[in-house]
């Protein structure tokens, strides 16, 4: 067994898991954090995206032992039901999601992008979310949600471009 101690959503947690356990499996099965989803399990779909020391990673491609001593943020750490994070509020306002399975990964990947503090274009948003697949929406409203969240959080204005042209 591998003993893993890490900070999850601001709280120190410890688990003892077999070495072949992924970070995703440990979060979901040992820590009851089922927000990050098991989708493709090979790093293509992004449904398991969490922040590892501030960087968006696929939790299905990290062994639990590799996260020893690191900080993890999952969708559960972003907000409470009473008070949404601005990204979640923006996604809700534009109805960015349909079934919602990709949502936690999309929102965490969006947070990583906005946290970088750079001026963004629609093309850069598409680039940053290219590792997050959505099979419902066709992405248009998700990108609208990211634009709104970016403007709300940073106070900046996205350059006017037609969604199709970006």
């Amino acid at each position: 067994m591998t003993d893993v101690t890490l900070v999850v959503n601001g709280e120190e947690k410890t688990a003892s898991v077999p070495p072949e356990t992924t970070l995703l499996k440990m979060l979901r099965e040992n820590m009851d954090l089922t927000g990050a989803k098991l989708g493709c399990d090979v790093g293509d779909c992004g449904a398991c995206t969490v922040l590892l020391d501030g960087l968006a990673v696929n939790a299905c491609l990290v062994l639990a032992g590799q996260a020893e001593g690191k900080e993890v943020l999952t969708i559960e750490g972003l907000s409470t039901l009473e008070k949404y994070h601005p990204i979640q509020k923006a996604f809700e306002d534009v109805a960015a999601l349909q079934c919602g399975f990709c949502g936690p990964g999309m929102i965490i990947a969006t947070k990583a992008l906005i946290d970088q503090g750079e001026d963004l274009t629609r093309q850069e948003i598409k680039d940053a979310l290219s590792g997050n697949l959505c099979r419902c929406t066709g992405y248009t409203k998700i990108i609208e949600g990211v634009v709104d969240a970016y403007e709300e959080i940073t106070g900046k204005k996205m350059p006017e471009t037609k969604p199709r042209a970006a």
Partner: protein
Amino acid sequence: MKPFDFIQPATTDAAISALAEHSPNVRILCGGTDYIVELKHVTQSPGVVVDISRLQDLKGIEVTDSGLRIGAAVTHTEIMTHPLIKEHAPAMIDAAHTVGAVQTRNLGTLGGNLVTCVPSMDSGPTLLALDAEVTILGPKGSRKLLLSEFFVFVRKTALEPDELLLEIIIPNESLGKPTGFIKFGLRKGQALALVNAASSFRIEDGKFKNVRIALGAVAPVVVRATEAEAILEGKMVSEGLIAEAAKVAVAEASPIDDFRASKEYRNDLIEVGARRTLLAALAAANG
């Protein structure tokens, strides 16, 4: 995944000892974007998995006496954002940007991309066009190889089971060398290369010098198109000659037919890729 033992050595020496002790039932894990996927599909346990992702000796990007040194465990994201890469080998940024997606680039490493040694690797062509070298560490010490000697076959490198890749070095004479990179995929994100290419040269007295044309996903390993290079070498710079060299490059590759693209389509992409990367290098040379 099949059960295995997991070791996180604190030093490079400890990692080498662990490899020697458990060889051949031992595998190296770093970024994991390829190897953990493999672990999920194998039917036999690898035995011992040695995680080298935290070794300080494998980190960092710096200019040394021999050139620009990039630790094998440097991630694609670090390459994309490092000022020394931007200054000395900016085409590496274009190549790193085409790897997977943000999540893959945050975990995946340059060394991992080379060691995995798939023909469609995105880092290979640019590094080959810059005459990159690698340093390998093993129980008997370190050895240096040209990257072209490091690639042996599909998923096969010159690494012995008890060795690990320490660093990649862009030699001094390649720093700042005008270089172009291109990748053709079915999508911009999360796509393997159908063909990728990188070209570089210097211009001296109006003539092409040290021309390199490297092609990926068109042979068992990333290859140089040496006959196409020879067409340009020492000749007066001209776009017409570039177009001619790009045509010749096609004959030097042996692309496969598969579900991603036909051999004929890949051959067309080789010509277009060689031409565009040479023109990009020309544009870079002209500042």
